[in-house]
């Protein structure tokens, strides 16, 4: 029965429907795997064994009674720890929120519960989603299941590792500058960052509100598409929420890429990129050509300014979003204070980690009077330029092909010394958040250390369907091109 965790999501769903396995059995299989593996991997911050089994029992009960069930009902999954869940801690992997329990469920969690998903627990991340290796978690390291000496990527490192190590059928992550796509790439799984506003942010603890977007991670494009469809619903609780997703999974998976126009930005392959990553992505472009797509090289000039603009905008917003963690109402509070100022200073000095403090300082500076125009305002102008450039590009192309990250998963501590070095790893993913576009990360090969390489498909706003179709078509060729190589 343990082997069921290696089955595809679709197969697991079918086994449940056909009553070849009960939901409790499936859930226990995952819990057992977590027990045996997570000691090493460290994906989970909280395993909700009791409530998972209770939900599984409810699903079995409903099925016994012949009640109508959602196609994804009963599938055991895990949630990034910056998404609010009633009855479980939500810590953002920060000392600041140690033991914090949200009194409300995020909208995505409500949708998951409506669909009778089984929530196995909460998974690790970089503190407040700031980082690209999950090394910034206050609680623990998460190891890359492909090579445990390496990081799983971040900030949704726990989400990617849990999927890669079969400790959840699928997981939810959040992506502010690549935090779903890059760990998916590092761990060799699939991750989707939907269009900004597609999935409600209500209950997602904000890092940078204008960039944050929840996204699913799974083992295949088909899995990710199904989870995405379940969650992409308009939400009255989020003013930036977009329209419902209306796509039909069957229709999009059957769609050919023949005649699709694909843009390959040359700027993405110029410098600082690991040679094997470059080769694998260029090979993927060839694969698309072989399937009948028209691939053309294009220039994307504004991209050069994307990284500094991203770090200014995201840090500015974070400095304001994280100001509420002041020790007054909830979360960590310093033991020793004489005045309200001291309470604030010590609580925040002790409760936040280095990277979070660095970004708060940067963002506060960028918004300060006298610097606002030079930094924050200028970053907004770059944002407009990038958006305009993508808009023009999408007048001629169906999607953009690029690497997810300049390298494959690195070893622990490798980028620990210079934060800028770590930031450079976000170069291909942040423009997508700045422009609010959807991006899909799928595996397109391995480097000589057998570490997975990620391919990024970037689409028009609200055109996840094209990305998922193209991603699915590419995935189907995998066996073929592996042999070819």
């Amino acid at each position, binding site marked *: 029965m343990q082997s069921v965790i290696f089955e595809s999501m679709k197969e697991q769903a079918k086994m449940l429907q056909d009553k070849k396995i009960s939901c409790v059995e499936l859930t226990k299989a995952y819990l057992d795997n977590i027990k045996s593996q997570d000691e090493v991997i460290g994906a989970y911050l909280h395993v909700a064994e009791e409530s998972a089994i209770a939900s599984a029992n409810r699903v079995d009960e409903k099925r016994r009674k012949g009640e109508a069930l959602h196609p994804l009902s009963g599938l055991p999954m895990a949630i990034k720890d910056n998404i609010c869940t009633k009855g479980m801690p939500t810590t953002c992997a920060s000392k600041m929120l140690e033991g914090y329990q949200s009194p*409300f469920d995020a909208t995505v969690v409500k949708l998951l519960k409506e669909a009778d998903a089984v929530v196995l627990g909460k998974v690790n991340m970089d503190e407040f989603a700031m980082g690209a290796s999950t090394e910034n978690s206050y609680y623990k390291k998460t190891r890359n299941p492909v090579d445990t000496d390496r990081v799983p990527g971040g900030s949704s490192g726990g989400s990617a590792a849990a999927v890669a190590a079969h400790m959840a059928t699928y997981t939810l992550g959040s992506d502010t500058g690549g935090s779903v796509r890059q760990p998916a790439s590092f761990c060799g799984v699939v991750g989707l960052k939907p269009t900004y506003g597609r999935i409600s942010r209500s209950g997602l603890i904000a890092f940078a509100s204008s960039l944050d977007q929840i996204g699913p991670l799974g083992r295949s494009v088909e899995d990710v598409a199904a989870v995405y469809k379940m969650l992409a619903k308009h939400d009255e609780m989020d*003013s930036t929420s977009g329209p419902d997703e209306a796509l039909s999974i069957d229709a999009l998976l059957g769609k050919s890429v023949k005649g699709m126009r694909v843009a390959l930005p040359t700027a993405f392959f110029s410098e600082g990129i690991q040679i094997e990553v470059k080769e694998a992505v260029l090979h993927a472009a060839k694969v698309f050509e072989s399937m009948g797509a028209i691939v053309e090289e294009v220039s994307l000039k504004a991209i050069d300014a994307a990284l500094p603009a991203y770090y200014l905008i995201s840090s500015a917003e974070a400095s*304001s979003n994280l100001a509420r963690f002041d020790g*007054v109402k909830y979360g960590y509070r310093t033991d020793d204070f004489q005045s309200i100022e001291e309470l604030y200073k010590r609580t925040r000095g002790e409760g936040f980690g280095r990277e979070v403090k660095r970004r708060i300082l940067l963002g506060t500076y960028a918004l300060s009077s006298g610097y606002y125009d030079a930094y924050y305002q200028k970053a907004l102008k770059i944002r407009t330029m990038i958006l305009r450039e993508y808009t023009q590009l999408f007048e001629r192309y169906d999607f953009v092909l690029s690497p997810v990250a300049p390298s494959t998963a690195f070893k622990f501590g490798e980028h620990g010394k210079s934060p800028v070095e770590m930031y450079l790893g976000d170069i291909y993913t942040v423009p997508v958040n700045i422009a609010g576009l959807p991006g899909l990360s799928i595996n397109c090969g391995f480097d000589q250390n057998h570490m997975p390489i990620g391919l990024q498909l970037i689409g028009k706003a609200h055109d996840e369907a094209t990305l998922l179709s193209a991603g699915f078509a590419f995935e189907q060729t995998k066996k073929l091109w592996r042999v070819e190589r």
Partner: protein
Amino acid sequence: MSYECVIGLEVHVELNTKSKIFCSCSTEFGGAPNTHVCPVCLGLPGALPVLNKEVVSSAIKAGLALNCSITEKGRQDRKNYFYPDLPKAYQISQNELPIALGGYMNIETALGNRQVGITRVHIEEDAGKLIHEASGGTLIDYNRGGVPLIEIVSEPDMRSAEEVKAYLQKLRATMLYLDISSCKMNEGAFRCDVNLSVRKKGSQTLGTRTEMKNLNSFAFIMKAIESEKERQIAVIEGGGEVVQETRRWDAQKNQSFAMRSKEDAHDYRYFPDPDLMPIVIKSQEIQAIKDKLPQLPEDYRVLFSQQYGIKGDISEQLVKDKAIADYFSKAASMTKTPEIFANLLIMEVSKFLDTGSENVVIPIKHEHFAALVNLVGERKISTNIAKKVLSSMWQTTESPQKILDDKNWWPIVDREVLLVLGREILKKTPQIASDYRAGKKQALGAFMGQMMKATEGKADPSIAEEIFTTQLIHEI
């Protein structure tokens, strides 16, 4: 050398929407602490604001009533600062693109008319309330957190405490007529910060200003202005310089105290709130609100002046309360002397009205009041008797004539009766006559006083006067 003060005001008006600005919690005043709260107004991690559209309509109404132009695209900004009453450590307000800009309001005082410029009207959320315990601790009640406010900023166009009072009364009345706020000052629904500087009369340059906070009654505002004006003049006369700072009015000590100087002022790091979309206001929407605006205090004032010739500062008193203004509008045409009506209404009726309450009701029938006014106008009764009749009319539904009959309050107009009484008075106090003849005209007043005393105020004053000056003075 004389000084004048230059005053601009920032007024915060709590709107009377049922729910808060960004969530569905009740805005009701006075609930048990922290019972009207939810994750949104508590600023809990992950909670997002969703704008209550009624707040925008209310702000548009206020903007239009204050002759402002309404923005087509508004924006909400975060004003960042740490304070325990602010659960998110930022207040959602408007910085660059407020709902309304560039208007004015006319005010009339005894000194004449003045147009006060309105800089802007913007929407924002209120903060919670800190309750400092005698034991030293501080408790926080977030019920008020997230209650919608509009902030109305005036130009520095006022020159005296009287003008400030007139401005605030007119502004408060305008908000009440629009029915967008309870404006109850004791509940903090109408609050005012005063920016004040002084300069030598005739000077065109502005002096250094201070901002005074914590002014929650008209009386405190008046006192604070006088006190601050004198403080600043004393500083300048003493060879010093006024420091730009925020001061807090202490009502108990009748004095203001420095809170923080310009150097300590917050850098609010305003930036557009990424959780909220731009506020798009279509011109049709503005027009629709404009078409439905009620008659405003200024409309009534103009009407009272044009139709009934009521003086500006008297009109301002009439329009302070919509019930009074409506009452006057309806009954004024029934009287022959609207001015007497206005004075009686203001002086006497105001006494009976709790102007702070929402439902002012004048129980007197319009035709009864008008009839009373006409009796005064025709000099059939004195103002003093009219006041007594008014008090009775407040209690009963009788006509003034009936009250005068029943209470036997009709003036004594019988010349012979008054003549007899007059002779007796002058017999008892011959001093009155000798003083009068010696040229002391105030002796007439003494006579009239005695006469009124003798008749319980019922003597017809004009007849009594006539008797004294034309007959009695020559008899004795």
